[in-house]
């Protein structure tokens, strides 16, 4: 009845630690990159998530919960482009031995704005807080034709050895 029935109840810290104990990723250090055009597609959010799920599976991204967190970031960024910027144009994933970088582009130059104060019990303003909590770095680059909102998450290996 519960997909997660076999997993012991863990706190957030334990989830991270669990992911770190798995096999390290066997990505080439030079990195992998995949891009999908989302402009005009229906169900962009699910589409982006499916695309990311496939890439992360192909790249053997370590940690079931870590992958779930990454898919949540993808979902939030694509949903924001849909809601606030006329739709996502493109989703890119760049993987290296150190980190995964998620980039969602749209055609509106207005950068996202973290809703402050964050009010946990009220609807609205959770998306970027989730991105902020789950990512090691995130940001926006505003171009002449729009912008890219991006988030980076360190691999468990890079987190364990930040100086590497």
């Amino acid at each position, binding site marked *: 009845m519960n997909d997660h029935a076999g997993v012991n109840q863990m706190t957030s810290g334990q989830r991270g630690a669990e992911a770190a104990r798995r096999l390290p990723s066997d990505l080439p250090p030079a990195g992998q990159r995949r891009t999908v055009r989302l402009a005009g597609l229906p169900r962009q959010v699910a589409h982006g998530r499916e695309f990311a799920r496939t890439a992360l599976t192909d790249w053997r991204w370590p940690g079931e919960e870590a992958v779930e*967190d990454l898919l949540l970031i993808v979902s939030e960024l694509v949903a924001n482009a849909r809601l606030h910027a006329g739709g996502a144009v493109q989703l890119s994933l760049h993987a290296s031995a150190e980190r995964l970088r998620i980039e969602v582009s749209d055609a509106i130059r207005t950068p996202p704005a973290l809703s402050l104060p964050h009010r946990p019990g009220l609807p609205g303003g959770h998306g970027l807080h989730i991105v902020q909590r789950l990512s090691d770095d995130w940001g926006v680059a505003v171009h002449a034709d729009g912008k890219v909102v991006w988030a980076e998450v360190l691999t468990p290996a890079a987190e364990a050895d930040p100086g590497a």
Partner: protein
Amino acid sequence: MSDEGFDAGHRVAPVPAGRLTARRERLGSTVLVVLAGELDLDSLAPADEALERALADGPARVVVDLAELGFCDSSGLNLLLRTRIAAQEAEIELRLAAAPDGQFGRLLELTGAGAVFSLHASVPDALADA
């Protein structure tokens, strides 16, 4: 109602990735809403409709079963937070049934929204009084 009997009742065919199905069921003074699949901006509509109708039925309690919800993002959370406010206004008790170690539990932890919901590990727990 036995645990098994209930389980058998709400097991559904697997929902395709990115899709959501919503089912309502009247159980005495409670309306059970079962959300299965993936809840995001693009799949809000069926969940929204089922929750709205559940409140419109005027039950004493609405239980939302999230055990088969494979994924939920902040769009889905916002829907549940709006439902919580609407239930409060209608003086209907709202309970969520979700395993705390699942992806929805993770979402509540990340956003802090767990604090405002009446959360139960399973539907039988949520159907029990108090």
